[in-house]
């Protein structure tokens, strides 16, 4: 009869002592890249896709305007609304808002203020054109159509 001697198994456990270090590294990465949302977005935001994206050198110069259908349609209706900071504003108030934003920048940078238009893809051109008119009025003419990268099929 064959012997079924108990084999002495080789030690197969992987050393896990470096695991906490790896996890910590990941943790720090996310801690550094994370931006805790300080403002609640009150409008729909399905950002359109585009290919010719550019990055801005100075992020402090960017102010954001969100345009889209309000999430709370019972309160604000279904027409696209404009959100600046944490409140919905009307189109004519944009000039005032831009001036406030500009005043917060250091004096040397005020000419370079850039407005990032975060527009929902279902919005029509009418409201956007109105907003752009107001931005021209406020002399904040550098704008950024926020969009996400499109994967190009070849």
């Amino acid at each position, binding site marked *: 009869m064959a012997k079924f001697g108990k084999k002495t198994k080789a030690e197969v456990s992987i050393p*896990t002592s470096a*695991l*906490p270090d790896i*996890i*910590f590294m*990941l*943790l720090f990465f*996310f*801690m550094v*890249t*994370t*931006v*805790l*949302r300080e403002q609640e977005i009150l409008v729909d935001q399905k950002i*359109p896709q*585009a*290919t*010719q*994206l*550019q*990055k*801005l*050198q100075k*992020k402090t110069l*960017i102010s954001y305007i969100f345009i889209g259908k309000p999430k709370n349609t019972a309160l604000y209706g279904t*027409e696209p609304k404009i959100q600046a900071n944490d409140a919905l504003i009307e189109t004519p108030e944009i000039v005032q808002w831009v001036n406030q934003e500009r005043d917060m920048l250091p004096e040397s940078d005020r000419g370079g203020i850039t407005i*990032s*238009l975060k*527009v*929902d*893809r*279902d*919005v*029509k*051109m*009418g*409201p*956007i*054109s109105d907003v*752009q008119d107001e*931005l*021209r*009025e406020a*002399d904040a*003419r*550098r*704008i*950024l*159509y*926020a*969009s*996400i*990268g499109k994967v190009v099929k070849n």
Partner: protein
Amino acid sequence: MARKKNRMSTEVNAGSMADIAFLLLIFFLVTTTIASDKGILNVLPPKLDPNNPPPEIDLNERNIFVIRINSNDQFLIEGDYRDNTEGLDEELKAFILNFGAPNDEAAGLYNSLPASLKALSGRKPESSDHPGEAVVSIKTDRGTSYEKYLEVFDLAKKAYFDIYAARVNLSTDEYRALTGKNDAEESLIDRGKEGIPMAISIAEPDKIGGN
């Protein structure tokens, strides 16, 4: 004589460290929104001064590439109906680099172009005179969807960036990533643009189909 005491083991149990770190990691994974400050840069024209209207500039029709998008998101490109934008960037490049009737300056520009761009030049009399004159005009209705407008604007930008990048021997992505943060990058950007202004005109939308 001091004798080494057989100390009790005082090491902290670090086995659960990974669990704690995992917990934190998951928290940040969930709350994180990686800031995306990417987009398509555009500079609006200055506001109109009612006392000082802009001079009327007469452009020849052949120098304008007209793209119209109606409120049903249908395209009218140079007078032809389309329902998609396929191949538009190539047409735009051919239009910009047509050199139908170049002046002396533009002829010099033409000679400075790399062969790949020279090949695009059709020399058609009914297309643009030279890149300095060529204008891409995008006109929408108020009811046009923003997505379609951005798609066309994106393609117009792509046509120009492709040309700029080819002039300085970079890929389009590399050229676009240049930010001009040092002199070398700035001179690359300038060399790409020289003589070929990015003339994308966005007309006031017609009051159709919107509010």
